């Protein structure tokens, strides 16, 4: 039952947060008339993809949780451990499909920009750092957990030498190799999908007739959604992992003050990770700027119709 925290805690926090994000997006959206029909249509496609991605993420986590409750046993714990990362994978997958189905240029007049786009040009730096930090922290915790865990890879054992006997105290579940392997596999898959999605964001067709700044803003917003989902799901996985580690450490602490302090530190870090995950979810994507009044760069040698 305790393992259910892996899904229940993040989900209980994720659902209202997703609603808040949606509400903010709707209330603060710029009217379509301000940005032109083509840009507005592209924005609608991106927002619809973003909403679908959130639905797919929540649905995937719920499906994994349901599967976990039906299989039972140790597999259940493993499934619950990866539920939030699976949500992140489903979310990113839907965003990648959104990029692949991006509106193609139509009509007889087409336009493009004579500049080579790079992923670095559209990456939101803050989110990138947050995603890298949460992923790095999760990898670190899982590697350390695997090194200090017991032989079963899911418990923590402490051996104390008393005057007349040696006693061993075990506590679990603990994020050792038993949980680390599927978690790291899911994290690797998520990182790969994020990389792919960001390249799709850069290589998708430009919005015909849109100002270059508007096109760049749309791409930055797409990259923001990809990184936001990945970073949030990683942080919301890190939180429960740290919580389990804290609980296991407390279970073997007995009267050892250092272990008690470590358990408290891990619990605090778990709360911080969950809060970071929620804050990341609440970060709205950048808006599409209104086109400037001035005419953009003239096209020399244009061809008469």
């Amino acid at each position, binding site marked *: 039952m305790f393992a259910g925290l892996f899904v229940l805690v993040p989900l209980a926090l994720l659902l209202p947060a997703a609603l808040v994000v949606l509400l903010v997006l709707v209330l603060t959206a710029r009217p379509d008339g301000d940005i032109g029909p083509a840009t507005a249509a592209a924005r609608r496609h991106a927002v619809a993809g973003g909403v679908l991605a959130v639905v797919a993420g929540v649905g995937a986590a719920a499906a994994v949780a349901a599967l976990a409750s039906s299989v039972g046993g140790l597999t259940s714990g493993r499934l619950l451990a990866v539920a939030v990362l699976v949500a992140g994978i489903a979310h990113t997958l839907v965003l990648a499909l959104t990029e692949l189905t991006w509106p193609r240029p*139509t009509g*007889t007049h087409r336009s493009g920009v*004579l500049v080579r786009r790079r992923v670095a040009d559209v990456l939101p730096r803050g989110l990138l750092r947050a995603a890298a930090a949460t992923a790095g922290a999760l990898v670190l915790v899982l590697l350390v957990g695997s090194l200090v865990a017991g032989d079963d890879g899911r418990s923590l054992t402490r051996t104390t030498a008393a005057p007349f006997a040696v006693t061993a105290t075990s506590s679990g579940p603990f994020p050792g190799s038993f949980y680390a392997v599927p978690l790291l596999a899911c994290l690797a898959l998520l990182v790969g999908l994020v990389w792919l999605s960001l390249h799709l964001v850069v290589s998708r067709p430009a919005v015909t007739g849109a100002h270059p700044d508007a096109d760049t803003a749309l791409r930055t917003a797409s990259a923001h959604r990809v990184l936001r989902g990945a970073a949030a799901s990683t942080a919301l996985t890190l939180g429960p992992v740290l919580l389990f580690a804290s609980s296991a450490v407390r279970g073997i602490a007995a009267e050892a003050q250092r272990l008690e302090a470590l358990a408290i530190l891990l619990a605090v870090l778990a709360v911080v990770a969950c809060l970071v995950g929620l804050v990341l979810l609440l970060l709205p994507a950048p808006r599409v700027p209104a086109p400037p009044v001035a005419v953009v760069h003239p096209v020399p040698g*244009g061809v*008469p*119709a």
Partner: protein
Amino acid sequence: MSGTPPQLEVDLSSAVPPYEQIRAQVAGHVAAGALRAGDRLPTVRALAADLGIAPGTVARAYRTLEAEGVVVGRRRLGTVVTGPAAQVGSGVTRAAETLVRHAQDEGLSEAVVLDLVSGLLRSARA
């Protein structure tokens, strides 16, 4: 390259083939200084996706530009601007800018201005 990046427009209903439209506009941007030596052009696939045309069309325009010495294809960097096909003096550039300004003031279309310049060039040669 700074500020708004140079744009490219293709009219699929024009009698001029799309590859020629791309070639002329890239060459124009290079001659006008909007694209400078060392600037990297978008990949064939990226520009074709932006314009919704076949990659072969963009590749043909790039090949023609390369033959004219405006761009060069490099294995790792892609297509890079080398410079204008012919050096344009500052006097000619200023005169062209003045012409464009006057044409815009009078609301003349691009086609009319180009016809005018073409006509004058032909008259001068005659």
